[in-house]
């Protein structure tokens, strides 16, 4: 089927309601008698909490009311982990500005905010820890008993020997600043106990984990908690954590016996939702004079804020950096050590590209700097080091097995796409004039579609690793699909329907992908880490295959033919070679529930299937960025952008392109604009959209040209995960382009115009 199956550029089913204002996001849920909650949050980064009083009528709820409600305490099975427990409302201490301390409810958010202003909390400020270096000093204030929340090191091969043999020992230090996912829709939680079930509407990426966690924290059995995922306005990893506010709102619904709603405002989102990145990588690269990298040694320090987040913990990001750092290069000797350090800032969590963005940033900067040291073109040095296309599958120095990847091909094709020699000519010509032009390349490989094996090996106890899909065909022949993984804009209602249409050869109109709801849907891990097209699709394809088998058997019975001889096309099932001997899909659905006498058909046409990917599936690519820098002001624009990506078989080209472009835009933001800055007293500085600068249309180049190398994976459907590639590689490509334009090392993102100007001056 060409029109609506795998590979079809099907416009999305969900758009009908999204375009016409009929979507229901978390803030659009109206329940009779609902009250609005508002939080009293700490203005101090580190303080003991004294007494809390309200100078008006109206109740304020504090930690003492929630005594016995479980804290957020993610687990880790492995060494080097120092656990933390975050009470849903802070009990004796606050550890970051914005930490929830108390909550009030009122008829409207307006009145709730009035009430908030009448609550007085007395604090005894304590000295704050504002950065990782400070946190590591012996006399530093204690955020927790141990300021190091996770430490780990590993070595493969003999990096010391490599360093001794090397002709070149390159040492770089590169840092990425704190940023935040900032989805356009902030968090929103609505909770209501209807007498039997605690219903929680929350725009989460992991409904089943939230259900388990809420049940656990509130002392309920899991089957009495239902998590429903409304339309969600972006997630990007930020919405894959359990938040204190979620627990509190659920608790309030139980306590008050009425529906309670909390809608996060933008200031809360920028200050108190999880933030991301903030790592410093010290990388030593041992190489031969012909540019071949012999070994790597990396020291990674992550500033992870005040607490571990659930379920991924503070280990996730720096561990990801370490594991992906060697990238698509044939490096055999690699040692790393990681420190995840607590500070009095908002907890950091997952954000598109998790770990991989900074790993790629470090390695790709090193490659460019090594190229310069060895007198090589940056593309040439990569050619010499990339794992050859015929060496795949390839076991990396960090133990990852790349199951796919035509890294050389990607690099060649992106250079051809961008006409690399011509860009260098343009650059030479530009040097004579006002603007500086720079070209930057970033090659990357990315793990996607992780399953339980990976999570267990890492020590992530709280993430199951499987996904699931249930398909129910009703007597009217509507095919309802229930997923374990919700969408925050990735178009699951379309892509998963395309998979079913591909297998069942029925029209897309018959297929309805239902809203994700833990009551009706099968259990799974959720949407994150580019897993939908691998883990999710795997489950959907299996379920569809089972339906096909059952329906074929029913058709066979109806047609008095062997199921082996039944074929499917265009909503019909017919006997091979005798197309008039046919039944419609509707006939089959009917027959499944109104069994014809003597047919031998057993009732029902449903499937529930699970898929737990046995190992990561790897996507990869090469990005090329062109920047123009005004050397008088440091102002920089991205003038061109090119991508050669391999995400395996493409499910829906419109959607794949959208994911890539969206990720690139976030990468541009991370490279040039975005910074969740804190001052040296750990006070957040970027608390509104005037200070936290998301990229605008004017910040994106007029054109982004992309090509896809579709080397299929061994997973069902041949897909590789995708969605994060843009966010993984763009910061590195742009950092390299800027460094190339100004001829000076870049050691920190974001690069404000002032930073670029300072670098230029230092280099002059």
């Amino acid at each position: 089927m060409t029109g609506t199956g795998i590979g079809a550029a099907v416009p999305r089913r969900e758009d009908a309601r999204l375009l016409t204002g009929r979507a229901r996001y978390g803030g659009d849920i109206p329940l009779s008698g609902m009250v609005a909650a508002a939080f009293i949050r700490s203005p101090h980064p580190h303080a003991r909490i004294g007494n809390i009083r309200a100078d008006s009528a109206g109740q304020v709820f504090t930690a003492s009311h929630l005594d016995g409600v479980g804290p957020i305490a993610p687990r880790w099975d492995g060494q080097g982990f120092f656990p933390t427990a975050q009470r849903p409302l802070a009990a004796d201490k606050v550890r970051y500005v914005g930490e929830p301390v108390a909550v009030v409810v009122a008829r409207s958010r307006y009145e709730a905010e009035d009430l908030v202003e009448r609550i007085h909390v007395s604090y005894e400020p304590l000295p704050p820890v504002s950065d990782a270096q400070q946190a590591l000093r012996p006399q530093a204030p204690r955020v927790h008993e141990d300021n190091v929340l996770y430490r780990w090191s590993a070595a493969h091969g003999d990096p010391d020997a490599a360093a001794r043999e090397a002709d070149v020992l390159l040492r770089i230090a590169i840092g990425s600043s704190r940023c935040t996912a900032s989805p356009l829709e902030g968090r929103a939680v609505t909770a209501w106990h209807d007498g039997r079930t605690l219903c929680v509407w929350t725009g989460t990426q992991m409904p089943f984990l939230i259900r388990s966690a809420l049940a656990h924290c509130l002392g309920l059995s899991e089957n009495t908690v239902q998590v429903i995922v409304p339309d969600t306005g972006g997630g990007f990893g930020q919405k894959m954590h359990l938040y204190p506010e979620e627990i509190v709102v659920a608790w309030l619904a139980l306590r008050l016996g009425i529906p309670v709603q909390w809608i996060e405002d933008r200031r809360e989102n920028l200050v108190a939702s999880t933030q991301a990145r903030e790592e410093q990588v010290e990388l030593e690269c041992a190489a031969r004079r012909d540019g071949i990298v012999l070994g790597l040694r990396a020291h990674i320090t992550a500033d992870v804020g005040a607490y571990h987040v659930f379920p991924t913990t503070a280990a996730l990001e720096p561990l990801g950096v370490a594991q992906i750092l060697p990238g698509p290069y044939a490096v055999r000797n690699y040692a790393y050590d990681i420190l995840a350090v607590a500070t009095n800032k908002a907890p950091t969590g997952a954000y598109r590209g998790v770990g991989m963005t900074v790993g790629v940033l470090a390695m790709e900067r090193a490659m460019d700097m090594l190229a310069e040291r060895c007198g090589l073109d940056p593309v040439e040095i990569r050619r010499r080091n990339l794992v050859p296309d015929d060496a795949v599958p390839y076991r990396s120095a960090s133990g990852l097995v790349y199951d796919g990847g035509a890294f050389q091909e990607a690099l060649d094709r992106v250079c051809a796409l961008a006409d690399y020699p011509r860009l260098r000519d343009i650059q030479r010509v530009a040097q004579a004039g006002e603007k500086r032009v720079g070209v930057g390349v970033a090659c990357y490989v990315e793990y996607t579609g992780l399953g339980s094996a990976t999570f267990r090996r890492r020590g992530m106890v709280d993430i199951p690793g499987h996904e699931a899909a249930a398909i129910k065909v009703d007597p009217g022949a509507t095919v309802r699909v229930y997923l374990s993984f919700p969408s925050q804009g990735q178009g699951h209602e379309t892509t998963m329907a395309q998979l079913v249409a591909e297998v069942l050869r029925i029209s897309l109109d018959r297929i309805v992908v239902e809203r994700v709801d833990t009551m009706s849907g099968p259990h799974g891990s959720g949407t994150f880490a580019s897993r939908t097209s691998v883990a999710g699709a795997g489950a959907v394809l299996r379920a569809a295959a089972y339906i096909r088998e059952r329906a074929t058997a029913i058709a066979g019975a109806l047609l008095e033919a062997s199921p082996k001889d039944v074929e499917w096309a265009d909503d019909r099932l017919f006997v091979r070679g005798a197309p008039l001997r046919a039944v419609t899909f509707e006939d089959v659905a009917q027959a499944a529930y109104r069994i014809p006498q003597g047919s031998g058909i057993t009732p029902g046409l449903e499937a529930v299937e699970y898929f737990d990917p046995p190992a990561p599936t790897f996507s990869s690519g090469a990005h090329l960025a062109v920047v123009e820098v005004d050397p008088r002001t440091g102002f920089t624009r991205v003038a061109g952008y090119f991508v050669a990506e391999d995400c395996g078989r493409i499910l829906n080209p419109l959607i794949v392109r959208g994911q890539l472009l969206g990720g690139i835009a976030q990468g541009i933001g991370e490279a040039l604009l975005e910074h969740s800055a804190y001052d040296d007293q750990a006070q957040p500085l970027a608390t509104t959209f005037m200070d936290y600068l998301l990229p605008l249309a004017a910040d994106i180049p007029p054109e982004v040209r992309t090509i896809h190398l579709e080397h299929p994976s061994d997973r069902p459907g041949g897909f590789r995960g995708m969605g994060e590639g843009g966010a993984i590689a763009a910061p590195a490509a742009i950092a390299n382009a800027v460094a190339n334009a100004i001829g000076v090392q870049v050691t920190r993102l974001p690069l404000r115009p002032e930073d670029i100007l300072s670098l230029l001056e230092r280099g002059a």
Partner: protein
Amino acid sequence: MKPPVFDYYDPLTLEEALGVLDQYGDDAKVLAGGQSLMPLLNMRLARPGALVDLNKVSSLNYITVENGTVRVGAMARQRDVEVDPAVARSLPLLVEALHFVGHVQIRLRGTIGGSLAHADPAGELPALLVCLDGEVVAAGHHTAPRTIPARDLFVTYLTTSLRPAEILTEVRFPMPPPGTGSAFEELSRRHGDYALVGVAATVRLASDGSINDARIAFTGCGPIPTRAADAERYLEGGRPVDGLWERAADLAARDLEPDSDLHASGAYRKRVAAVLAARALRKAAARAAPPDRGRQQ
């Protein structure tokens, strides 16, 4: 982020509005386009006892060009001024400056008077008014209206010399003499953001091609917009030769003490001020037409 409680008045006439303001003193705030005030209300950074909404006072919404002045009622929308053909002909610098004010969606509702009364230290219109030596008219309850020249209007961050019970009713932008070239240059982190640094410049050439006079005004370089008097004096009588604009620009930036913030340090702003001033002067000179030539270059 919801506004706190306040009293609300939507008078139909200026007199009514002034009457309410008089009652409340400095506990009332005037609501014009709302593009600056409403965010402050939503964030509860402003907590007036009363809002006096001028949007129904139609007598404050007009644009006239006469006697060498562009006179704009305080409630004229920025966008309406931006696209007005008479303004484009008579005062292109105003149109150019307006292009930098936020985004079109902001300018469709934001007002000329509101923007000036708000006196954001990185706003474009205050610098423009100061560059042109414009003035505003302020009305008070039971007092005669007074004119406030631009140089006396801006006091410090977000503060004008308007008295608590006064309303800014009209803005007057004097048109520079015919043949004067002008330019507005600005750098902001993103398109439409408040300026990191902005410069408004005019250059008038004499018939022999020398500089008759030049004006330079900065925004984003301190609590209020400033004119670069020393640089302007330096340029008077000068000849537009290589390096002149740069020397003047360096002189103009020399005494600036811009603030530092998340986006840029004061030192950076000072440097860039010089770069922008040179660019603006050069552009303005290129657009100037000396009297005997009588056409734009």
